[in-house]
């Protein structure tokens, strides 16, 4: 189960990277950022899972999973959301200048 999770996380990360590299639409780029971030987060959360673990809440019955990655992930989710919000705000701004979100048509800064 852990290996499945790792594999999915890596696959998702790579899809995000591929989206950023290949798509010419600025919205797609931002979507790629979100997907990439989720992949990295899934990897971290999976790192804390142990077989048959219970959530890290007192009182616990049985062995708890590792709570440290949960704290990391919480922080990282909020950071990712802020990144995305700022990126979208800038996309709106760029769109107001060029009236398009197609990277190929945005050629203000050359070379």
């Amino acid at each position: 189960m852990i290996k499945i999770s790792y594999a999915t996380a890596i696959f998702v990360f790579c899809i995000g990277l591929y989206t950023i590299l290949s798509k010419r639409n600025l919205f797609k780029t931002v979507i790629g950022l979100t997907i990439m971030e989720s992949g990295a987060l899934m990897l971290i959360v999976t790192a804390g899972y142990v077989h048959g673990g219970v959530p890290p809440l007192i009182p616990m019955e049985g062995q708890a999973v590792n709570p440290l990655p949960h704290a990391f992930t919480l922080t990282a989710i909020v950071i990712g959301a802020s990144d995305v919000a700022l990126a979208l705000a800038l996309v709106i701004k760029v769109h107001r200048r060029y009236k398009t979100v197609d990277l190929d048509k945005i050629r203000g800064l050359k070379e």
Partner: protein
Amino acid sequence: MILTLAVIFPLSSAFVIPLLHLYGSRGLRLFLPIMGLGAFVLTLAAAASGFGDYALAFFGGWPARLGVVFVADGLSSVFLALAAFGCGASFLYFYEQMGTGPWRFYVIFFLLQASMNGVLLTGDLFNMFVFYEIFSLAAYLLVSYSLTWQAVEAGLKYLVMGTVGAFFILLGAAYAFIATKTLNMAALAASFPQMPKATLIVIAACMVVGFSLKAGAFPFHFWLPDAHSSAITAVSALLSGVVVKVSIYSLIRVSLLFFGDALPSVFDVITVLGVLSLLGGHLMASRQQDIKRLLAYSTVAQIGYIMIGVGMGTATGIAAAVFHSFNHMLMKSGLFITAGRLAEEIKTRNIQDMKGLYYHRRGMVLAFTVLAAAIVGVPPLNGFMSKWYLVVASVEKRSFLAALALVFGTVISASYYIRVLSVFYTPGEGFSEHESRRPVLAIAALFSACCVVLGLLPFFTPIWELFVEVGSKALNTKDYIAAVLLK
């Protein structure tokens, strides 16, 4: 205590400024210079506490293994001093030009300074990522601060590239966490050599790619010239002088601490990246007609110099890299301030339109000349000294190719800076006849004087030995681990 305050004071300044703005703007006029000065002094004090022994600050009173710890050693001290001076100059320049009107700029500026100190001080990989993100977001915003379309577009480009870099760093941290179940940098450094080779390579690649993206080394450089040339002058000076150096610091810290023993081939990769960015940056710079773009590409090349120094992986190499970082902060901030001010005054950034500028703006052009001579590496100036030590370090390590690239790069940079200067000194007409205001001239003069002084100091004082000590201390990871974990 002082380490904590160096982060908390600018941070709370950033929280207070909107309140001051909303409820009585006289307070803002009164407190803003105090805040700027306080941040400057506290950063310098934190830097001073790190020289000599390791200075530590434990958050929440937890030991380093459990909580987050701030560590100041020689390496972070030098970079803290660099950040203090660069931020101070940029703050002064902006304050002189704009006053207290654009208060949002100051909020973002103080957030940048607080998080920068955080990155330089922290001893925890995830904490570094968090501070790094504040710092990067603030940098993207400062780039697009002027809200011209170039600035917004450059900001978006910078944001996308920087965020991809940040996620690579996060991925590297995730791998490190999977392998060791901790993210304290000292604990990680202790357990890295036992890690499987495949994992180690993945972590190394993620970190190098992430930090190179953030620093703008050659294959990942394409956002840097746009961002650094589209921003307003104060921000350009800040970005080229300080922001890039923080990424360099993280690269040095991570590569030495984690891969110094475990995977030494990382340093070869860093050297190759350095040589590539040196040659690429200089070649691109020599083709530019826009003076700020020229300076921005020159920054790419100078990052190459610093990375070659890091890639040597020896005490001399690290010392030369650190020394060159400091010098580059002085030179490039000064160049951006002078060139940016000149370009603002004559309302063009095209080099060809600046013919005869010397005869109308003597002070600024003279300062520019000194700084340009320093960055090319004319002998008694600081640029020459650090480049000399870089060559010495690479010859010591027997990587003659790197040394050759260093020399060759200097020749190219001489060619294009001479092109700019010859335009400045050719007689020409058509500029309004008012000299720049005094404070800006004073900043420019101060920076060029520092360049001369730092170039002469190694002849009279053991300042170079100081840097070598910083380098050898940074290389000594055992001491670092012991100092952090055993307290």
